[in-house]
């Protein structure tokens, strides 16, 4: 038997919503980055689920490149978070409110 497409889409929608809630609610910069990763994964799940019907596998190619860009994004974001921590001595997002001392 074949899993229906709507199950994948429902899972991806729920995952995206949870990621959005994490980004809004959490105050630690690293946990916010985790929420962004969850949202990217939800988008990937949609692409892969639709790619099942595609003989050219375009969705899977796009999903591969999304994974690459997500890796680049998390590397640069964590470097910035480390720099913010060196400067402000915290990664609490509400306390990081100025660009320069």
């Amino acid at each position, binding site marked *: *038997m074949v*899993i*229906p*497409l*709507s199950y*994948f889409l*429902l*899972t991806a*929608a*729920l*995952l*995206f*919503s*949870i*990621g*959005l*809630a*994490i980004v*809004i*609610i*959490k*105050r*630690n*910069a*690293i*946990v916010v*980055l*985790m929420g962004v*990763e*969850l949202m990217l*994964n939800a988008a*990937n799940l949609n692409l*892969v689920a639709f790619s*099942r*019907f595609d*003989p*050219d*596998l375009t969705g*899977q*190619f796009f*999903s*591969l*490149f999304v*994974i*690459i*860009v*997500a*890796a*680049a994004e*998390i*590397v*640069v974001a*964590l*470097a910035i*978070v*480390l*720099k913010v921590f060196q400067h402000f*001595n*915290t990664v*609490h997002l509400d306390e990081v409110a100025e660009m320069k001392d």
Partner: protein
Amino acid sequence: MLAFVFLFFMILTLGSAVIVLVSRNVLYSAFSLMVTFLGIAGLYVFAGADFLAVTQIMVYVGGILVLLVFGIMLTRNKADRGTNQPNTVKTEHRRTFWGILAAGGIFAILSTILSKARFQRIELDHYEPIERKTTIHDLGIGIMTNYVLPFEVAGILLMIALLGAAYLSGKTQSLGNK
């Protein structure tokens, strides 16, 4: 039987994502995020994307999650270090109501669109899920022919991100004094 296994992976993914949301300990969030990534890799297998499932495990669990845990370890508050408390890094919750409201609103919109769209007709009438043994062959040929330019650009992007991250996180204290 297959449906139960799918349901298991779906509950695994969503449940551990909810744990990331409700847990106040950042390290617990990171480890349940690992379970989420593994569950998504299982869902990729159900969607017939074997290569992407392996890539997901290698890149996310092996790379990004390790980076996140390193980030958590390196950004602990100095106030926590002197005490005899075990290694806990807490995070606070703010604007819980607005967060739940925005996420619930997005989910309501998405599920309305999904229920109105006629995906079932597409699935039943025109397109059957394509049966293939493996996608690695097609993906490899595609990356070296149709998608060779994005592939090379992605390599350059990764190199630039690596250099930029190394430059940013290095000791550049003198930059601010000039």
